[in-house]
Every structure is written in structure tokens, then in C-alpha cells.
């Protein structure tokens, strides 16, 4: 393999890492950005998505269909949580945070009771490798990268152009005024939460073939999501993509000689120091 091929392969792998980060944290950023709710159960929603695809594939369902199903199942869970629990806590972000965290513990335990603590594996819907400029690369990874780009653009457009996106942005700017103008604010919150949850479920389903699906996988993805939010800021989905690029890039750069934990620790340390120098910078909204 020539040097350029090695570099190209490294670049592609980094891109896939970034894509995975975007996919895993987009839902978190949507829910936090629109509702001020830091969903601590986001990692568990990803885990639920993973389990959905594992279970449906044992029933013989096509994994692509399974991924859609996973999004649907987790969206339903999200609607139940929003309507049943979070709806009572509007304007109390710290209580909402604690509540979703309690929910995360419950979900983790329920899944462990139902499926056991042993990790499950999911089969990738497409196998084999394609040749990228003469370098073999797993086809499924490319599919995930492509789907991530499609989903991200779709979400960006959804909150930008249709009437629904306008209602969401109106609610975000001035909740009372939007309600006065006839926007059903409760529904906007519920649908936004459902979309965020669906993205988590979809992410879990797509990631399942890469990872061992176990009840405790949520923590890693939650912290990954936090890291992208810390670097990329909130309120803008572009920020999430940017944050993922920084974290994924740092991991990719360091991956050849150290574990990805070091990259994350370094990025976190830099972010903490930078916030002192530029308080209005990366952490603050708008």
C-alpha cells in the first residue's frame, strides 16, 4: 500500500468517526436546543435502537427496515416520556435533567432484566468491501457515512423551510407569542422530542453492527454527545456538526498512537481553558 493510500484510508475512517458522532449527538442537540432539556437518557435511547434492530433481525426482518423500526420505537418512547413526565416540568431544566437521568438508570436495568447483561451482535445489512481509489474499504461504513449526511441535511432542512420548522423557530424565540399566534406549543415540543428520540434510535440501529450491543453502552455515547455540544455550542445544528468534526478529527489524528480517551481529555481541557479566555465564545448560545 502506498503512503497516499494509507492517508486516504485514515481520512475515510476519520470521516466515518465524525459521521457516527454527528448521528449520535444530533438528537441530543435538537432536544437541548429547542426545549432546554438535557436528555441524560439519550445514550439509552441509542441503546434501545440497537436492541430493536438486534431483536427484529432475529425475527428475520431486513436490517434496513429494522433501522426504520428502531427510529419509530424510540420515537414512541420519546413521546411517552415527553407527554407523561417532562411535560409537567416545563421551566425547570435541572429537574428535567435529573428526571431523564433517573429514566436512563431505569431503562438500562429493564433492558438488562429482559435481555441479560451479555452483549449482543447485529449483522450488517451489507457486507463486503468496495475499492475507493484502489483501497478496499468496508461498504457498510460508506453506507453509514452517506446516510448520516442525508439525515443531517434532512434535519437541517426540516427546521429551516417547512411550516413545522417555522413553528419550531417561533416557539424557540418567544414561546408566549407563538402560542398567541395559534402555534400549539405543546405539540411542537412533543414532535421535536420525538424527532430527537427517533434520531437516537436510528443512530443506535446503524451503529449496532460496529459495536457490541449491551445495556451499558449509553454512557459512552452520552459523553460523546456532551463533548460535541461543549465544543460546538448549542442552538445551531451546524455547531453539532462542527463539534463532531473537531472531536472526530482529534481522535483520528491521535488514534494511530494512543487511545481515543486521550484525544477527548485533551479536547475537554482545551475547551475548559478556552471558555475562560472567551466566555462569550463556544459555550454560549447565539
Amino acid at each position, binding site marked *: 500500500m502506498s503512503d497516499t493510500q494509507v492517508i486516504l484510508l485514515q481520512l475515510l475512517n476519520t470521516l466515518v468517526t465524525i459521521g457516527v458522532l454527528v448521528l449520535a449527538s444530533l438528537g441530543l442537540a435538537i432536544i*437541548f436546543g429547542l426545549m*432546554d432539556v*438535557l436528555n441524560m437518557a439519550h445514550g439509552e435511547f441509542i441503546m434501545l435502537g440497537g436492541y430493536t434492530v438486534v431483536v427484529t433481525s432475529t425475527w428475520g426482518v431486513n436490517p434496513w427496515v429494522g433501522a426504520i423500526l428502531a427510529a419509530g420505537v424510540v420515537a414512541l418512547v420519546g413521546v411517552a416520556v415527553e407527554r407523561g*413526565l417532562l411535560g*409537567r*416540568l416545563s421551566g425547570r*431544566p*435541572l*429537574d428535567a*435533567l*435529573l*428526571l431523564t*437521568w*433517573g*429514566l*436512563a*438508570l*431505569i431503562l*438500562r*436495568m*429493564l433492558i*438488562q*432484566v429482559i435481555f441479560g*447483561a451479555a452483549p449482543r451482535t447485529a449483522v450488517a445489512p451489507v457486507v463486503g468491501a468496495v475499492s475507493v481509489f484502489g483501497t478496499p474499504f468496508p461498504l457498510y461504513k460508506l453506507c453509514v457515512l452517506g446516510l448520516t449526511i442525508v439525515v443531517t441535511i434532512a434535519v437541517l432542512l426540516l427546521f429551516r423551510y417547512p411550516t413545522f420548522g417555522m413553528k419550531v423557530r417561533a416557539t424557540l424565540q418567544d414561546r408566549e407569542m407563538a402560542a398567541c399566534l395559534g402555534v400549539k406549543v405543546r405539540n411542537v415540543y412533543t414532535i421535536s422530542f420525538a424527532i430527537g428520540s427517533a434520531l437516537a434510535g436510528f443512530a443506535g440501529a446503524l451503529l449496532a453492527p460496529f459495536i457490541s450491543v449491551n445495556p451499558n453502552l449509553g*454512557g459512552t455515547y452520552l*459523553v460523546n454527545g*456532551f*463533548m460535541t*455540544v*461543549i465544543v460546538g455550542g448549542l442552538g445551531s445544528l451546524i455547531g453539532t456538526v462542527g463539534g463532531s468534526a473537531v472531536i472526530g478529527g482529534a481522535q483520528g489524528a491521535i488514534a494511530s498512537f494512543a*487511545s481515543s*480517551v*486521550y484525544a*477527548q*481529555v485533551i479536547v*475537554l481541557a482545551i*475547551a*475548559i*481553558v478556552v*471558555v*475562560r479566555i472567551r*466566555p462569550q465564545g463556544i*459555550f*454560549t448560545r447565539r
Partner: protein
Amino acid sequence: MASLGSSRLRRGIAGLIGPSDGEGARRSKERPFALASKTLLFAAAVGVASFFWGGRGGVDQATLWLIFGMLAVGVDVWWGYAGLLSFGHGVFFGLGAFGYAWITTGSLPWFSFLGQTPLAGALFGVVAATAMGALVAYFLSYGRVTGAYFCIVTMALSFLLAALAQGTPLFGGFTGLGGVPPLGIGRFSSSGGAAMLAIVAVTLTVAVYLLRWLLNTNLGRVIDGSRENETRIEYLGANVPKLRVMMMALSAAVSGLAGVFFAAHSGYVSSDLLGMGISTEAVIWVAVGGRMTLIGPVIGAVAVRAAGYALSGVATSFWQLFLGLVIVILVLVGGNGIVGLGRATTGWIRGKMAKKPAVGKAPT
């Protein structure tokens, strides 16, 4: 603005915040001696009850719970009084524990001049935790990081430092460090039992006394103000970021001391002590016991841990489920935990006795 303000400035601000009499002030300005006595009584009661229930093993368990109670007091200083929720106090707890373990087992060559006595270890552990707390708070407070952002950053810090420690030989990697000696001075050493319980209980009492005393001063009133209305208190001349750095240092010191006791009591430290598990559970203890009460976190830690111990006979795996349910119910029901419930009840009884409606509401 250069310092925390002159004592005259603090008195002025405290005067502007509001009258220092009345029901609310009486409740928030509990007398340090009364609160410390209650803490000591509670700790003693837990110790005696555990002895009759489980003998020496029971006392060792109770000591562990009181150590966790001390960590919870540290969390309460920050979450309750400074008003920012931290999911990273495990970092300070863990640093305290590792600091003690490193010095007493002589695994830090640079600091070998300190000797290997437990006292030096305890000092090093507390200083390490305090320094870490002040450092983190310096950047985050002056960076105006509050609310959910503060949770995110502290939680990520805790998770990543634990992950880092897992791969570092100095922290014992996955297995941790064993053979940590118990507390002691000279020939006397306390390897568990009633002596250790007494040391923890008395230290906890002194810590509660000092904290309550500090929070009752005019400086404490300014701290109250910085929590309730950051902007207004700054207009009055207080330096809120500086206050927060001080509060976090204090909070980390108490948490670090709890870590020192943990290492000395269990004789074993591992990267788990730095992690998200203990950081988040400490928040539950405070929520269960009652925020802004100082004694509540101790009661909460003992109650939750005792319940967990009783449940572990049924099934260990239900522990997290139990914790999750506790949190969800607490948030939905509202109120201020066990102490809040107790105060509401005594207030109600007093109201009945005085034949007029109960005054005041539980502090939020």
C-alpha cells in the same frame, strides 16, 4: 472588586438583600451548634443501630455510609448553596482517595519528602482535591458556565478522568491499588471498627459546624445572593466568579476529605472512585436528604445506601432500577427530601398548636 469585598461591603450587601429576621431567615440561619449536635446524634445513632444489627461488620458498613454522607455534604455546598449542579464530584472524591493512597504507599517519588504517614497522605489528598476544584471552578466560573452546561462539563470530566485512570499504571489501571494503610498517628492506628466510625462522625460534625458558621456570616448572605440573583448581586459589588471558586474549593475539600477516609477505611482505591457512577449517586443522596440543609445529605446517603444494602439481598441488579425510581419520584413529587418533609411536618404541627395556619414553605 479585587477581593471578595471588604467586610463593610459584605455587611452592606447583606443588609440590602433583606432583613435578617423572620421565618425564612430563622430557618436558613440555623445555629451551627444546634445543627452540628443533630449531625453528631444522627451519626451516633446510625453507629449504634448498625452495631446491634450487624456487629463489627455492621459498624464498618455504617462508617462507609457516613463517609458517603460527607461526600454528599461537599456536593450540597456546591449544588445547594452555590446553586450549580455538578455531576463531577467523584473527581474530587477520587483524587482525595488516590492522594492518600499514593502518599501512604509511597508511589509518588516526587513527594517522598512528605514521608508515608497517614497524616501526610490525608493532607496531600485534601490539597489535591481542593486544587483540582479551584482549578476547574476558576475556568468555568470566569467563563460564566452555568446551568446544564456546568453539568455537562463536570460529567464529561468525571467520565474521561475515570477512563484515563483505567489505562494509567499510577491509578492501578483496571484493578486499582490495594494495601492502603488505615488512619493513624504514630503507634496508634485505627483499622476499622468503632474508632474509625468515631473519627468520621466527629470530623463530619466539625465540618458541618464550620460550614454552617461560614454560611451564617455576611459572606454567606452574599453567597445566598449570588445563587438567587447573580446579576443583582454583581451590581451591588460582589465578585461572583471569585465567590464560586471559593465555594468549589470548599466543596472539593470536603469531598476530598471523604475520599481520604474512604481509602483509609476500605484499604483499596480504584478508578471507579473518580467516575460518573459515584458522582451522580452523590447528587441523589443530596436530593433524597434535602438540599441546603447540610445534615440532609448525610441522612440521604445513609438512607439510600442502607436501603440498597437491604435490597442487595433480593437482587443486586435492581439497585440501579431502585435509584432511578427514587430520582423520578423525587422530581415528580417535588419538595426538599427527608429534611424538607420533616420541617414541613414540624411546621404543620406548630401551626396546629398555635391555632393558626402553618407559616412558610419548605425552602426550594
